[in-house]
């Protein structure tokens, strides 16, 4: 109920806002949340993206959400001695760990190839590196495998036709972050196209962070790992003794 009221409130604010600022800027957007906290009960998050734009008929909106970049290892398995084992691996670096594209219709219909390449409106134009020296001759199947698996894990996702435009002035889109999303600063780009040309754009940020006990545990495990191990043992020792103590009395 609280979020509903909040959302309605937001719509009103944005609508009012948009009327006043149209003269200078023809795209105004806002997010229902600018920070996502991964707590111990985290199971994914929905963020509502609101926008108002000074639109004409047949204008288009594309939303791109990109997460932190990192290293991803692609392993290839082959059957050896009757079992499937990893025989070759390639490490890709500079890979966006999260990349989401949404639009109101097919992106190829919205704009041209150069623009798609420039704005990275598909998964084929990232500037990736890998640990094999001969990048040019790297078999395409490795990148295809990376792409396929990132999509399967919902880390890379494209949803064309998923943004509903309302009377050429308003749009909204729910951004669903999966439960295994990585932490960091996420950049939300909202692109407004008219006849294939970008006429305005907006950028927002979402901070995804671990909080609470979950974050503390992670930090201790990373930074004070020996102490963490000792604490883990002490907790187990205590519970072992405690149950013995309890059950002796029953």
């Amino acid at each position, binding site marked *: 109920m609280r979020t509903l009221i909040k959302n309605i409130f937001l719509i009103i604010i944005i609508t009012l806002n948009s009327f006043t600022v149209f003269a200078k800027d023809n795209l105004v957007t806002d997010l229902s949340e600018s920070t996502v906290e*991964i*707590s*111990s*009960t*985290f*199971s994914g998050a929905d963020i509502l993206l609101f926008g108002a734009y000074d639109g004409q008929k047949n204008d288009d909106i594309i939303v791109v959400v990109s997460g932190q970049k*990192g*290293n*991803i*290892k*692609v*392993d*290839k*398995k*082959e*059957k050896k001695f*009757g*079992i*499937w*084992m*990893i025989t070759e*691996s390639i*490490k890709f670096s500079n890979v966006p*760990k999260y990349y989401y594209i949404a639009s109101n219709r097919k992106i190829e219909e919205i704009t041209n190839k150069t623009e798609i390449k420039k704005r990275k409106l598909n998964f084929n134009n990232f500037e990736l590196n890998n640990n094999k020296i001969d990048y040019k001759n790297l078999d395409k*199947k*490795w990148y295809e*495998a*990376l792409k*396929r*698996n*990132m999509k*399967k*894990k919902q880390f890379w996702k494209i949803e064309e036709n998923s943004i509903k435009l309302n009377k050429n002035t308003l749009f909204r889109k729910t951004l669903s972050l999966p*439960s*295994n999303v*990585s932490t960091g600063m996420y950049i939300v780009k909202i692109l407004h196209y008219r006849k294939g040309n970008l006429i305005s754009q907006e950028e927002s940020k979402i901070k995804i962070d*671990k909080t609470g*006990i*979950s*974050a503390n*545990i*992670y930090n201790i*495990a*990373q930074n004070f*790992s*020996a102490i*963490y*191990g*000792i604490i*883990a*043992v002490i*907790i*187990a*020792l205590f*519970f*072992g*003794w405690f*149950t*013995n103590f309890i*059950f002796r009395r029953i």
Partner: protein
Amino acid sequence: MYIYLPIAEQPINAFIVLGIGWLVGIIMGMVGIGGGFLLTPLMIFFGIPSPVAVASVANQLVAPSVSGVLSHWKSGNVDFKMGTILLVGGVIGSSIGVLIFNILNAIGQLDLVIKLSYVIFLAIIGLLMFVESFKLIIQTKRGKATRGKLHQHNWLHGLPFKTRFRKSKLYISIILPLIIGVIVGILAALMGIGGGFIIVPAMIYLLGMPTSLVIGTSLFQIIFVAANTTILQASQNQTVDIVLALILLIGSVIGVQIGSKFSNLMKGEHLRLFLSFIILLVGFKLILDLVTIPLDIFSISVIK
């Protein structure tokens, strides 16, 4: 209820994991063996990365071992001298095990080795347990029980550094228990198991220890091996998920207590027969995953 695991970095259904820990605990309590060799593969089936599963199960293992030792100690069934030699070997072994773990991790074959070790061990234990309990059931039906010699003297008793173990009424070389400790330690680190199913027969048949002292003494050494593994895994690989371990251990310690209270309800051999089926089933599922064509021969993982 979903709880986010901070190290495995994924949410997990806490009640299901608690339930698994509890059921495995009941089996542990009824049969008197550790449950690591069931818990680790079950956690892997659940989608926990195998390095995290192994390290966290080693952590949880400390708890049921402590409560087990405490009750065996009360009844005077722990040979601390033998236990100490075993644990020295165990601590050395688990340190070697974590080293092997790191090397395998670096060359990217850790997952395969963990699964293969499980397939081999589950097959051996499952079959042995099946044959043994089946024989016993047949024998009791026919009404004749055979009994072997208590302990035989062989070349193992000719080794140097002989010591007297008053509690166990033994005069043997310390080399043998030390080696047994090392082997069990390596397994504990690599597979997240206490190694009860190896150390118990080894203590009875190789060392010739009285059966009454075996479980208490092996549990005593497992505490230290599991603790050493936990600290080493945590400090070198950051793979110990304390939340996962905690959920599992709460389930298992309660299960163990319930299981041991009801252990006389069912005949030991029937219970072992049943357990051997579960073990073989888990092993079969693991081997099936290894030999069937993967849906995608490529897989990805996020690395640092």
